């Protein structure tokens, strides 16, 4: 099967290449003896379950889970924001836990189970968290939303599992759902539009409905 994502070099890739050249030219000469660099890309096979389906990919070892999802599986719901784990737009759920898919290599997830926003619900059958974000206007531009929703779903599971947070008053008592707990736990998801208060409302409604 032909893969348009791999045949066409898009503008972003050209720009990234140009940036790398500029950085190299500006870098001071190294005074350390460096081991010989690996000059050709190293390809490796990896299989993992994505949204209920086993997918097998032949990937450059450098491919992050985020790029595997977006560029190779064309699941573009998961977003690339900062690509450095600071914004949370790339949040997906792997083996039941939310993680930054930009800061993990695809090859590190052999046999794993990945749930991206596409695996939570569909336009005709929204996940309750997706429906609550729509109802409460939990977004404006929508770019951070898939990460917010994946994080939101996992946060409610973490509270149910009794995992404490920075704002949990008593470490030895059961964790209680509260607005401050939601705000603290969602701090790894940045929303440039500032939809935070509506996101808290959406999450609170889902949590209360779950009981």
């Amino acid at each position, binding site marked *: 099967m032909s893969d348009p994502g791999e045949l066409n070099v898009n503008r972003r890739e050209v720009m990234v290449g140009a940036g790398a050249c500029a*950085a190299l030219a*500006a*870098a*001071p000469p*190294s*005074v*350390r003896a*460096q*081991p*010989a*660099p*690996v*000059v*050709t*890309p*190293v390809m*490796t096979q990896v299989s993992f379950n994505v949204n209920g389906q086993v997918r097998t990919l032949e990937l*450059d*070892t*450098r491919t*992050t889970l985020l790029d595997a999802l977006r560029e190779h599986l064309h699941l573009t719901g998961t977003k690339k924001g900062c*690509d*450095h*784990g600071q914004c*949370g737009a790339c*949040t997906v759920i792997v083996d039941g*836990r*939310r*993680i*930054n898919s930009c*800061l*993990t*290599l695809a*090859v*590190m997830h*052999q046999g794993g189970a990945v749930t991206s926003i596409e695996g939570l619900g569909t336009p005709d059958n929204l996940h309750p968290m997706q429906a609550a974000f729509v109802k409460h206007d939990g977004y404006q531009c929508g770019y951070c939303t898939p990460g917010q929703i994946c*994080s939101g779903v*996992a*946060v409610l599971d*973490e509270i149910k*599992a*009794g*995992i*404490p*947070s*920075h704002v*949990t008053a008593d*470490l*030895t008592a059961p964790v209680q759902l509260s607005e401050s707990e939601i*705000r*603290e*736990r*969602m*701090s*790894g*998801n940045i929303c440039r539009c500032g939809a935070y208060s509506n996101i808290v409302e959406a999450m609170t409604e889902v949590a209360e409905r779950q009981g």
Partner: protein
Amino acid sequence: MRAFTFERANAPVEAAAAVARTPGAKFIAGGTNLLDLMKLQIETPTHLVDVNGLKLDTIEPTPEGGLRIGALVRNTDLAADERVRRDYGVLSRALLAGASGQLRNRATTAGNLLQRTRCPYFYDTAQPCNKREPGSGCSALDGFSRQLGIIGVSDACIATNPSDMAVAMRALDATVETVRPDGMARKIPIAEFHRLPGETPHVETTLEPGELITAVTLPPPLGGRQIYRKVRDRASYAFALVSVAAVIQRDGTGRLAVGGVAHKPWRVEAAEADLPRGAKAVTERLLAGAKSTHDNAFKVLLVERTLGAVISEARS
């Protein structure tokens, strides 16, 4: 990111040997710090040894009455462990004050100990940095240094260790267990694990090439009020300007370590004798010989005030 070869290790000694025999090799566990640095070509490993399959992910009681934390126990799991919450609250609190939920789900105990500084000049590959390029100079000395170190610094480097977890472990006197490529195990007191920058700021720990952390052990519970107070520029998901990890007993005695001020978690045991006399007396001994910059001179007073808040909380 530079190209690299990749292998999955099945046993600790095998992993250590693989890194030792391959020039430019590194271990990867959570990867949350290493991949960030690889994308910026600050770290350029030619070979990665994935240690996630080593089954070092359990927390077990020790015969002495403490806990042995596997190197691969994720920060979330360590913070949420019932025994840690009950007996080592300062450690739970420190972990929960660090990073974000997503990062704590991936970050490991050993990886947290090995995370690298967030000095802006270490991250800026267009600027000299003795830690990134030994001998190139330190841009921070005359640069923006608000976040940087005030004690134990050198003319070569004023970077700080960014870990919250390690500050609590220093207050608790944890021990780092390792295995070397030849199969020999050793135990390193956490006080001796991180190094001061001196003339070689790129050498951050006392680990030998290929040496792999297998566990961190905690001594038997200390009791007392266990407090981790972190002061930062925003209320969540930010590195510390100053943090204090303390275990304070009912009679006012105790122990403490400070984060955000040095190349390692900062503890001066002799200063702890002054705890009953209050924060000012402790801070004078704790930070004796401090060498701050124009930008970060405020940290000396901030340590005193943060410690004062901790002592008040312990008495309440």
